[in-house]
């Protein structure tokens, strides 16, 4: 295996206003490499394939075990997490690009704060009365827990939004992750007290109606969250509410 190498092409951009450009790197292959460990390797020796000195790549990461949601990027064109992208399972040359639907900060790092704003808009929380001791929470069957748990594993990586054909500036669509969180909180015994507010937030332009059921979201979600199921469940509730609201007018 002597001298086996890894070829990586990275799309770089110095700041939000400047033009992107590509750089190529060739690294010595080692067992167990992933995309993040490769970019770390470049930082320790920032030289391009043709021997030009350059700067370390800017990217987001934290947990390195696919649970913090930081390191999302386009790897060989697909929205996914870089820390769990094993080099041995990727076709070379490997291309790394920042997400295309979020403002680039620098190189592979993008601004995904829109998702956190959306979570605020749909009140994605259980409105507890306070943190003083009020005894135990509502009882839940194991089945209910097993239904909620997968939804609560969303890491806010925004892969589902990047991959969604409807998620763009003209629609202002909130995206699958937010809708799925609405389902999570609307089914919680206490959380459901805000159900109507959440459904209202998903009505109208940019709301759930924008979804074309293309299912790209489910395919890329690194946590296998049942997003289309969430969309159809919440969609039904929004429809129901629209009808009720209409007759109340």
């Amino acid at each position, binding site marked *: 295996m002597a001298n086996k190498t890894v070829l990586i092409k990275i799309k770089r951009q110095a700041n939000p206003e400047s033009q992107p450009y590509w750089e190529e790197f060739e690294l010595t292959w080692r067992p167990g490499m992933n995309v993040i460990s490769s970019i770390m390797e470049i930082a320790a020796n920032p030289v391009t394939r043709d021997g030009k000195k350059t700067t*370390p790549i800017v990217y987001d990461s934290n947990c*390195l*075990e696919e649970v913090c949601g930081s390191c999302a990027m386009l790897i060989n064109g697909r929205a996914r997490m870089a820390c769990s992208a094993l080099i041995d399972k990727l076709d070379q040359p490997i291309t790394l690009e920042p997400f295309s639907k979020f403002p680039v900060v620098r190189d592979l790092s993008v601004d995904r704060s829109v998702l956190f704003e959306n979570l*605020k808009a749909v009140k994605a929380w259980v409105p*507890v009365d306070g943190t003083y001791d*009020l005894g135990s929470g509502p*009882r839940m069957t194991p089945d209910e827990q097993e239904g909620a748990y997968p939804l609560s594993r969303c*890491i806010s990586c925004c892969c589902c939004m990047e991959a969604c054909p409807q998620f763009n500036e003209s629609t202002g669509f909130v995206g699958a992750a937010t809708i799925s969180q609405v389902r999570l909180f609307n089914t919680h015994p206490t959380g459901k007290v805000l159900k109507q507010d959440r459904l209202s937030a998903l009505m109208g332009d940019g709301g759930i109606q924008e979804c074309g059921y293309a299912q790209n979201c489910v395919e890329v979600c690194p946590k296998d969250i049942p997003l289309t199921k969430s969309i159809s469940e919440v969609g039904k509730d929004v429809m129901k509410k629209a009808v009720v609201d209409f007759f109340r007018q």
Partner: protein
Amino acid sequence: MAANPRIIIVGGGLAGLSAAIKCAEMGASVDLFSIVPVKRSHSVCAQGGINAAKNLKGEGDSTWQHLDDTVYGGDFLANQPPVKAMCDMAPAIIDLLDRMGVTFNRTPEGLLDFRRFGGTLHHRTAFAGATTGQQLLYALDEQVRRFESEDKVTKYESWEFLSAVLDPQRVCRGICAMDLRTMEVKTFPADAVIIATGGIGAIFGKSTNSVVCTGSAQSALYQQGAYYANGEMIQVHPTSIPGEDKLRLMSESARGEGGRVWVPKQKGDKRPAKSIPEGERWYFLEEWYPKYGNLVPRDVATRAIHKVVHEYDLGIDGQPMVYLDLTHIDRETLNKKLEGILEIYEKFVGDDPREVPMKIFPGMHYTMGGLWVDFNQQTNIQGLYAAGECDYSIHGSNRLGANSLLSCIYGGFIAGPNAVRYGRENGKSSDGVPSSVYETEKKRQDELNSRLMTSDGTENPFKLWRELGEWMSKNVTVSRYNKNLKETDTKIVELLERYRHVNVSDKSMWANTSFAFTRQLYNMLQLARVVTQGALMRDESRGSHYKPDFPDRDDKNWLKTTKAYFAPDADEPRFEFEAVDISLVPPRVRKY
């Protein structure tokens, strides 16, 4: 007097967020600083669970037993009153998290389910699948988002804390921080500051910690005069998955659910694990510790694995690895209770642990040491509080599994209200502080930055960091020898010298992450000396701190807290010692 004091919280892990919730609830205005968006904090990595003696399994568990297990597990180095307060508060913390919507696993009756963890004989650990930390952090994050939408909390994400602003009386009046996008340095006034910046794994190069766990903030404060206590107490987790970039944890819950550790009895046995008959396997933990078996505390399991690999030379394929075996447990149970961690193994190693025994080895995991705090979570700097993994208070010389998430939330719940009370009572408030106090600190940091930016040496910061990590992991983890510790300290001094010739190749003033890292590296080096020298001094073995040349615990000389403080003129740590409060559980020999 400030009726609604302004509180700065640095860090948005479990400790920071729980402090934020308490402060906001009490009417304070909270400014919350974090390097990463708080939802991406390291706490999401916690897998196994959180302890509370709810006694829902009819085992006669009690908060007193929880206290006893915790101080015994920590080999009696922890002050006992705060441990007792934490254990007493634990059941109410679990209830609160449950009310906030944490998807804890349930019993058929709809109650919370509990699993067993290391260092106890009771089912005391509540869990949400195998991603408990993620679930707890999200619940707190959601509550903070709610306060944010009511303008009670303002988040400064992608901001890095650089230092505290101290007035001439050494009272903390705010912080100095750097915007990690514009690289601008700014000061922020506050009536009280809470530090909740987590662990220090990066000092050891590879660890189970997340990337931002560098201890840089703690080190900066230590260099500003805060005491750093029990720095030498470093937990090495027995079961991690060796990796290129990180040692990924295989949670203790794998053993809690019945996982067994073994090696082939015969050296160099090349057969696939599954085909090795029972009789030819050595379940050494079960043999050596019949009472606790695979669930002995972490330091004990770690040393046992080291012994089997290094002394008996029985590592799998001659490599430093042993088997952690779950294959005797049925798939359905495994999927229900451990899916999250099994997935990690599958994703990063490529084997299915339901079918093939996992290969694991000990890895640096947690710091019991941290900023010194009193029983109100205040540091020795007035107006500066600390909570979470970055404070030293609860775990003594070894932390029990699932006690950290608890201590983080407890710490936040104590630090928050105390900071608000302090702000109300003592603050002539930050308004009365002359602006020169802030300007001086900003100037100091600006100068530091420009010196670093213009330095044109030849040392690559990432390579210096690797060297530091290799030395620390080799000499300052499981088995410690004074000779090696001395050499390590000399090495760190050399690295500090070479740091003066560091080359920051990226000169950009926009989102320059390698510049930020280079700054942190300096603080890591300074803190590494505290850890190393603390270990060098403590000539005994206690909890995670093990010296083969001094194999016994020595209460006569060493039942005391190490307190390091920085001597600026000498540019190195000095040490003091403090008696441990053992008023509740008298020390006894720790023998599992």
